[in-house]
């Protein structure tokens, strides 16, 4: 007994020595300091709030990865094959991949993860693939098969999402994030920071940074000050990390800056089923009556490209060459006149058959940006004889109003890559979404919904493109949306960081590609 206790003690000392050496080796490598408003969370591969998606994307990897071109590329799966009926996906898994605890990633581990999603499908059914997936098989160590109930073309796109279809070590203890990604979370101090170090078993190239320290800084102004005082090295993201004015100020002070390609669309949804906006002429007049470029230059500091269509042309099936609604108040006024919305002498608001041309614009009261935009819209459209009443609401109330269709116009951005266009379009079929509620007044709503169902099940790319052309053209011609600008991710860094890149979605930050500057 005494001897075994001595052996145990020696083993523990040995383990401690090795651990401290490893820790020292990691600490010796450079550290990238980033910030986020909250802690990363417990980091369950299938977890939602409080798990943060940027951190899940660091630790867990998908079978296929979404690219900036809107396509997918091999990742944990080195190749795949789709059956002719579009119902069976067979993946060949990359060889030599290990989880950060050293256990192998194989088809059994992948199946265990996907089975866990299916076992809790109620929680994950918001993702169409989860409701479409019938079963998962692992015929051998490197082959994984997904059997669908019916063909679903965005299968690969949805497999690329940050959650819930990525892979954690099946035997990892709850609260211990073990993935195959380039990083592993080694320390988390609530309210202070999360520390990530390199995954020693990573199958790809090891990151240049030894660790990423993510400090918890909730306030955007404090985050900017932290960059200025050197307490963090990098500000990057598309979730309002800092305001546009602060971005411009820091850029002008000499901090290296960058803007990503369009990742989503900042837009207004117009209610076709209620009030004056039932009239197509009114919706078209709203689109023609807003000087978007001036709004972008003056309110968004020119940081976002003007949006002329609901989806940016760099997204799949979205480059349709649709004619933009040009800024033309005179044309807008003529169309309103022609539709019977007359401005009687002495009045400031048009009316038709006694009904005033009044529209309620709902915006998020806590967003200074939405408030500014709403006020400009109000002023611009007043010149056309429209009475826009502004309604500031809380975030939860905004979602409630979107769900209930309780709006004339409402801010409703698209979901961004990799959800656009397929998931976003898919949601248009379900009552309770802002888009469904906005479109329900259209005479061809049923037909639109049928086309959306068809496009998602389509196995022929040609046919799919035709269906998308019909859907997006109809929405554009019916002026259901006012696309304002394409949302971009921002990046500001101190000169200690090089090779800063953007992820291909709204949610990931590719720290593994970044390198310490040679001058430092």
């Amino acid at each position, binding site marked *: 007994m005494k001897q075994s206790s001595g052996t145990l003690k020696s083993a523990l000392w040995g383990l401690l020595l090795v651990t401290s050496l490893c820790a020292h080796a990691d600490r010796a490598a450079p550290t990238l300091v980033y910030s986020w408003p909250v802690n990363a969370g417990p980091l369950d591969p299938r977890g939602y709030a409080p798990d943060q998606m940027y951190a899940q994307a660091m630790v867990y990897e998908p079978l296929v990865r979404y690219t900036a071109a809107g396509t997918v590329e091999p990742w944990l799966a080195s190749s795949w094959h789709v059956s002719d009926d579009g119902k069976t996906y067979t993946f060949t898994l990359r060889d030599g991949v290990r989880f950060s605890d050293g256990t192998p990633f194989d088809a059994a581990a992948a199946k265990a993860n996907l089975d866990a999603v299916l076992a809790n499908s109620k929680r994950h059914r918001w993702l169409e693939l989860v409701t479409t997936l019938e079963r998962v098989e692992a015929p051998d160590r490197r082959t994984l098969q997904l059997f669908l109930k019916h063909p679903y073309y965005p299968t690969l796109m949805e497999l690329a999402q940050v959650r819930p279809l990525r892979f954690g070590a099946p035997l990892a203890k709850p609260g211990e994030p073990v993935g195959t990604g380039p990083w592993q979370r080694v320390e988390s101090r609530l309210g202070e920071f999360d520390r990530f170090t390199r995954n020693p078993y990573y199958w790809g190239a090891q990151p240049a940074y030894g660790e990423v320290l993510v400090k918890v800084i909730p*306030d955007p102004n*404090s985050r900017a000050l932290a960059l200025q005082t050197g*307490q963090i090295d990098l500000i990057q993201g598309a979730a309002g990390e800092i305001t546009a004015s602060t971005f411009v100020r820091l850029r002008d002070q000499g901090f290296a800056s960058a803007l990503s390609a369009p990742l989503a669309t900042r837009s207004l949804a117009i209610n076709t089923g209620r009030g004056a906006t039932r009239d197509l002429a009114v919706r078209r007049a709203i689109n023609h009556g807003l000087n978007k470029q001036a709004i972008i230059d003056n309110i968004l500091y020119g940081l976002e490209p003007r949006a002329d269509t609901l989806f940016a042309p760099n997204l799949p099936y979205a480059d349709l060459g649709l004619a933009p609604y040009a800024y033309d108040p005179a044309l807008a006024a003529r169309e309103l006149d022609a539709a019977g919305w007359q401005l009687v002498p002495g009045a400031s608001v048009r009316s038709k058959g006694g009904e005033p041309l009044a529209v309620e614009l709902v915006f998020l009261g806590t967003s200074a940006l939405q408030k500014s935009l709403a006020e400009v819209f109000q002023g611009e459209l007043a010149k056309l004889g429209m009475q826009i009443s502004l309604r500031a609401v809380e975030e939860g109330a905004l979602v409630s109003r979107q769900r209930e269709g309780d709006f004339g116009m409402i801010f409703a951005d698209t979901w961004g890559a990799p959800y656009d266009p397929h998931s976003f379009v898919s949601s248009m079929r379900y009552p*309770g979404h802002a888009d469904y509620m906005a479109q329900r007044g259209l005479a061809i709503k049923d037909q639109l919904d049928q086309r959306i169902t068809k496009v998602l099940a389509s196995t022929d790319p040609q046919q799919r493109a035709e269906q998308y052309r019909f859907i997006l053209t109809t929405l554009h011609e019916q002026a259901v949306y006012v696309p304002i600008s394409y949302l971009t991710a921002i990046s500001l860094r101190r000169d200690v960081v090089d090779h800063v890149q953007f992820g291909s979605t709204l949610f990931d930050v590719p720290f593994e590609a970044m390198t310490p500057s040679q001058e430092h």
Partner: protein
Amino acid sequence: MLRYILLRLLLLVPVMLAVSLLVFVLLHLGSTDPALDYLRLSHIPPTDAAVAEVRQALGLDLPLYQQYWIWLCKALQLDFGISYLTGRPVLDDLLYYLPATLQLGGLALACTLLFAVPLGLLAARWQGRWPDHAVRAVTFIGVSMPNFWLAFLLIALFSLWLGWLPALGRGSPGQLVMPVLAIALMSMSINARLLRASLLEASGQRHVTYARARGLPERRVWRGHILRNAWLPLVTATGMHVGELIGGALVIETIFAWPGVGRFAVSAVLNRDFPVMQCFTLLLTGLLMLCNLLVDICYAWLDPRSRLQGVDA
């Protein structure tokens, strides 16, 4: 005296119950649905099915009275539920963050007293002369300046321009200086002005004139007859400032990325994290009531009249 303290402690129970009921009802009267907030934070589209699922998981589908009863039964066993935001037990989270806030608040209170008393004395002792004018000018600025603005000015001066102090975070003594100053300045200024006014009022009392007429040395007059009476309003104000200091911590902790309970509560409010808001309100109520009790005990110690009243009660 002991009986009085016990009675006051017992009074905590009905007050806490009433506050818990009031807060619970007020939180649920709002137009927002925490299930929608949860889905928004999770980047899950709020379909009817998803909303129903989350409402059921969070217990929001039950009638309000039932929700309150369940909450109360658990709260009596110190189980205040799970935070919607962090997924951890609420009490664990609040107790985790509380020491950092107590450190900040305690130091701010100490600073308040450490500076307010000498400044008030200085101004009253040399009333109408330059020390009085200087103190009044400084405290006027202190009272008028919002703490969040002061916080950013301090960071700009000491971190950005001079580079003397770290702008954010917790860990080193240097990281305490600016948040403590930002929280304490207003209370310090109010207390200094209050003490000045109180000292001047006390020094004009007839018993002070009589003491001087008896030929007592000026120092003894001040110590025995003026200061003793002037302390009382300061004690009351200090008790009230504990609430202000915690209120100040809500904003200041967010600006300085200070991992305290104030910042945690702000994020709970912004995201409609009902269990945290409920527990935080109760914690604050208990803390303020205990502070008031402490003030009353100090009062009784300083003023025999209130001690006798307390005994009579």
